[in-house]
């Protein structure tokens, strides 16, 4: 177990990028996305002002603590590196919202950083966030990483398939490391992900851009 744990933590530290998806779309584009995992159900609605900034609404329902959260989020692309066959991104994220933790509403601030590197065949990502609120006992810091491979490389307009492995590390949670193998299907404006964690919790995510 010690070796597995070390491997996972090393993976978390070494992998680079957004564990979910790029938070900024094309200029004037809207993004709706929902994430359902062992940890929470989260709904995002974002408007991308340009390729560097998006603003949106985030709603969260925690499965770990029954806390609910509603906030405004700003995503900023700090750095992008494009090559003929790859793209790498570094993002800064900030949220300000209201957390309903123990039947008490309070202001919560969250900051995060995420990065990704992908080709048409390989994908890695890492994301870390920290939330501060008066009555928040746990879950202040969390991070997650992903690696993925496309079993075949599809042309634009066809279905793309990715096999991915997501590792979540929540230092203050009971099950602090959760591993989730998942499948990503991707075509045009639509992206779907489904998986099952090692704790037998289902993962289902979707993104629509328009």
């Amino acid at each position, binding site marked *: 177990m010690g070796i597995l744990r070390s491997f996972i933590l090393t993976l978390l530290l070494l992998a680079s990028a957004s564990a979910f998806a790029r938070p900024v779309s094309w200029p004037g584009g809207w993004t709706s996305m929902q994430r359902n995992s062992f940890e929470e159900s989260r709904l995002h609605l974002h408007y991308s002002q340009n390729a560097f900034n998006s603003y949106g609404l985030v709603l969260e329902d925690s499965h770990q603590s029954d806390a609910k959260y509603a906030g405004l989020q700003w995503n900023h692309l700090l750095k992008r590196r*494009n090559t003929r066959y790859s*793209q790498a991104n570094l993002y800064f994220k900030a949220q300000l919202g209201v957390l309903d933790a123990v039947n008490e509403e309070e202001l919560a601030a969250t900051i995060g950083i995420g990065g990704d590197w992908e080709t048409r065949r390989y994908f890695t990502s890492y994301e870390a966030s920290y939330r501060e609120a008066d009555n928040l006992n746990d879950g202040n810091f969390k991070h997650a990483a992903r690696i993925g491979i496309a079993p075949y490389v599809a042309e634009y307009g066809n279905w793309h398939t990715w096999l991915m492995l997501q590792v979540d590390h929540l230092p203050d949670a009971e099950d602090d490391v959760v591993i989730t193998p998942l499948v990503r299907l991707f075509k045009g404006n639509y992206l779907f992900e489904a998986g099952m964690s090692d704790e037998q919790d289902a993962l289902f995510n979707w993104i629509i851009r328009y």
Partner: protein
Amino acid sequence: MKKLSSILLISLLGSTTFLYADETITAEVHGMVCEFCAVGLEKQFEKCDEVESIDVSLEAGTVKLVLKDGQQMDDERITKIITDNGINVASIKRDDAETVAAE
């Protein structure tokens, strides 16, 4: 002499057909590795009145534009649209609008 020139001009015009081919522009881009990147570029060029059709290829890393008859887009504008989408332009090639005189 003047009458002969007029007859020659009329007969030349009558026997010649001018064909104007649509201009095709191919931009080679860097960083376009997923569907969302490609959709974003397609959506931006769809907004341009000059563009007749768009063909995006992830494999080739290209955005091919066919312009409407008589329309033009300069390299600067094409580059701005692509870079505003967070993608880099490596090169822009044009199949110049050909005026073919066929007998």
